[in-house]
């Protein structure tokens, strides 16, 4: 019945997550991939939508499987008083509670920070909301692309002269989860030193804003409002993505005079190197549209990966713009275990996107796939909460555990 510990620096830390969709589960995943024991509170009557997308088996839903590795699942119906009492017992044995459910929902279930503190005085609670937990706009809810728009990030991303369309529509939720996980671990340090827990009130909008902090600070310093600027860089030219064969694109950044000369050599473009319009960085910046057009003509009939390789060999920063098929079939990424296999209840194993870190010695092991709904009911109720089997059977029969 004991769940094997994956090891890792957060070994011994227990996290309870009352989360749905992406940002909250992603925070839980990162903590689990650092070795914390993360228990997801779930219910058949109040499912994480990710278990339902596609109308497939809730235990084999691709969205859910792709996020929730190394997570434990316990079923409890939080709409019942008994269910809430069980959650409180779990909280009493946890270090961190994370939620990303609707504003006010935790408080209505008497699971606000003041309630939690009474259950466990040194608890760390992290609440992830669109705008944070309260405030004049705290009532609003929305979706990740709305957060990015509100945050100041979308305004900075777009092709020059066009309506700023922002990053891909999927961008944002996972980053908010990462910010939440970071703050939770900082709070563990404070608790370790002082014995004091705390409440972490995370704004998903501000998570996006924090990624454009240098642009916002520059506005405060210079008074110039930054705009969406395509691939423009004020101090590097050429700096952009250039078309290649088929649907390929190559990114090139000539950050120094040597890079520029080497770029012209690799492209066999003596005329560009000698062109007075492009003789210095200042002139290249002044004439960058003409320069970009010249380079695009030279790259258009080349293979993006081959050209990038030649440029890097010549010392020029360059890389192919990677499509989803490029990423999925990349030997280097597979070889480095950027992708790795975890257990899977249906087919035995499933590839996942592994953590961005390697930690040694005593690094965490990421090997277990996402849990079946209620897979760890026995562990949580019998071992952690110490309930007799008959009581658990009764809770299941009465759908308190559902």
């Amino acid at each position, binding site marked *: 019945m004991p769940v094997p510990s994956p090891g890792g620096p957060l070994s*011994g830390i227990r996290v309870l997550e009352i989360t749905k969709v992406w940002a909250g589960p992603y925070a839980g995943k*990162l903590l689990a991939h*650092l070795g914390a024991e993360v228990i997801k509170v779930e219910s058949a009557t109040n499912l994480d939508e*990710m278990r339902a997308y596609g109308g497939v088996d809730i235990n084999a839903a*691709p969205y859910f499987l*792709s996020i929730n590795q190394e997570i434990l699942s316990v079923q409890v119906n939080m709409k019942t008083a008994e269910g809430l009492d069980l959650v409180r017992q779990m909280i009493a044995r946890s270090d961190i509670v994370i939620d990303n459910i609707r504003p006010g929902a935790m408080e209505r279930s008497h699971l606000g920070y003041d309630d939690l503190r009474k259950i466990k005085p040194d608890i760390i609670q992290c609440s992830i909301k669109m705008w944070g937990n309260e*405030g*004049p706009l705290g009532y*609003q809810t929305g979706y990740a*692309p*709305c957060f990015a*728009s*509100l945050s*100041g*990030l*979308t*305004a900075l991303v777009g092709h020059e002269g066009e309506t700023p*369309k*922002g*990053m*891909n*529509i*999927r961008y944002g939720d996972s*980053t908010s989860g*990462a910010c939440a996980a*970071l*703050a939770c671990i*900082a709070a563990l340090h*404070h608790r*370790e030193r002082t014995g*004091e827990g705390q409440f972490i*009130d995370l704004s998903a*909008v*501000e998570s996006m804003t*924090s*990624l454009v902090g*240098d642009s*916002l600070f*520059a506005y*405060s*310093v210079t008074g110039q409002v930054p705009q969406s600027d*395509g691939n423009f860089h*004020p101090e590097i030219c050429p700096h952009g*993505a250039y078309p290649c064969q088929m*649907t390929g694109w190559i*990114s090139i950044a000539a950050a120094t005079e040597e890079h520029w000369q080497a770029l012209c050599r690799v492209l066999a473009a003596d005329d560009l190197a000698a062109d007075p319009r492009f003789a210095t960085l200042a002139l290249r910046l002044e004439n960058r549209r003409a320069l970009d057009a010249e380079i695009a003509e030279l790259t258009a009939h080349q293979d993006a990966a081959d050209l990038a390789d030649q440029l*890097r060999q010549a010392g020029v920063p360059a890389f192919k*713009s*990677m*499509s*989803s098929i*490029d990423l*999925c*079939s990349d030997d280097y990424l597979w070889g480095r275990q*950027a992708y790795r296999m975890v257990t899977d209840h249906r087919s035995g194993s499933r590839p996942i*996107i592994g953590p*961005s*870190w*390697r930690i*040694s010695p005593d690094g965490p092991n990421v090997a277990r796939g996402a849990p079946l709904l209620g897979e760890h009911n026995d562990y949580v109720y019998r071992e952690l909460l110490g309930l007799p089997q008959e009581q658990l059977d009764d809770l299941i029969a009465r759908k308190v555990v559902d």
Partner: protein
Amino acid sequence: MTALKGITIVEVAERPAGEYTAKLLADFGAEVIKVERPGGAPTRHMGPFRDGESALFGYLNTNKKSVVLDLDDAGDRARLDSLLARANGLIDDHDEAWTAAHRLAPDDVSAAHPHLVHCIVSHFGQGAPHEWQKLQPINVINAGGWAYHSPSETTHDKPPLKGAGRFLPDYEAGIDAAMCVLASLLRQRRIEPGKPGGQFIDISEVEVQLNRIDCVLDRMLAGDVEPSDERTAYDMGGPGTSFACRDGHIYIFMTTKGHWNALRALMGDPEWARAFREDWLEFDCTQANVDLFRRHFTQWIAQQEKIAITEAAQKAGIAMVPVSTAADLPRNEQFAHRGFFQEAEHPVFGKVSYPTVSYRMSATPVRIVSPAPALGADQEAAR
């Protein structure tokens, strides 16, 4: 009270990736000693500037100390060792040739300072081909896939984009790096006496980007969805996108009958909207319908003002929001309420407004206590 009181970090990083990692720790209250080369960190020489001072450097180095060490000089290299001997962590972001040349490769550091949490942030992680290790952020975000797929709905004839600002992949990696360093420092606090508390943390900027798109890319890896060379492979369809309005831009996201009915009412139930099924967003969301909607909506929204119309939309339950600019944010009541921007004096800039962090912590709030240091301002720390 700060979360990391008593923790000391040495930063030898010289790119925004590592500098941001250490900034996150400094803003949590760690003592961060920034080691700068003679003449100063490279980011001191990157714009924009005011009165000769870099705003970028000013942002990335709040709450840090500065010492100048020439790590090619044996005496200064020994001074770095003295700093490391009393530090908890070391943050770096150089390529492997540099770390080897300066005896700062992972094995060098763990041998000399077994107590130390040592983190290197690099483009592709340790062990990448040498010529992959000195790229620019635009190359890294293209290598990680977000450029190819941004913005949504980009056609094959338009370039992939570098993302917001110059350093988006650096900042994303900084979050993971700071998280791992903090996790490892917690282990260091808890380690049995007599055991070395050090660990090496290898962060790949590209793998951070892959991880951030887990629930899209992993379904392709696992064969649930076909990967492709489509620029729209990360997209989710539907009419959501940005539109120009009278005084800027708005973004709208709609997925349900409720959203559509509310929007129709907000627009005054125009004739063109009646051509759509009430539940078209759920059951008839074809490209033709999306195009038709956008054609009409573009004309209507162009006449609206972004704050007034988005406030009305929010009250009606429509996820329509302003595309905020840098000038909008300090005036936003929610940002003001949460104190996201903190005013502080800078010796050259005067009173300026610092964007801070998304996590409000009740016991250990993040504060901008000191501006980025003058070069070598804390040199006595390295004596």
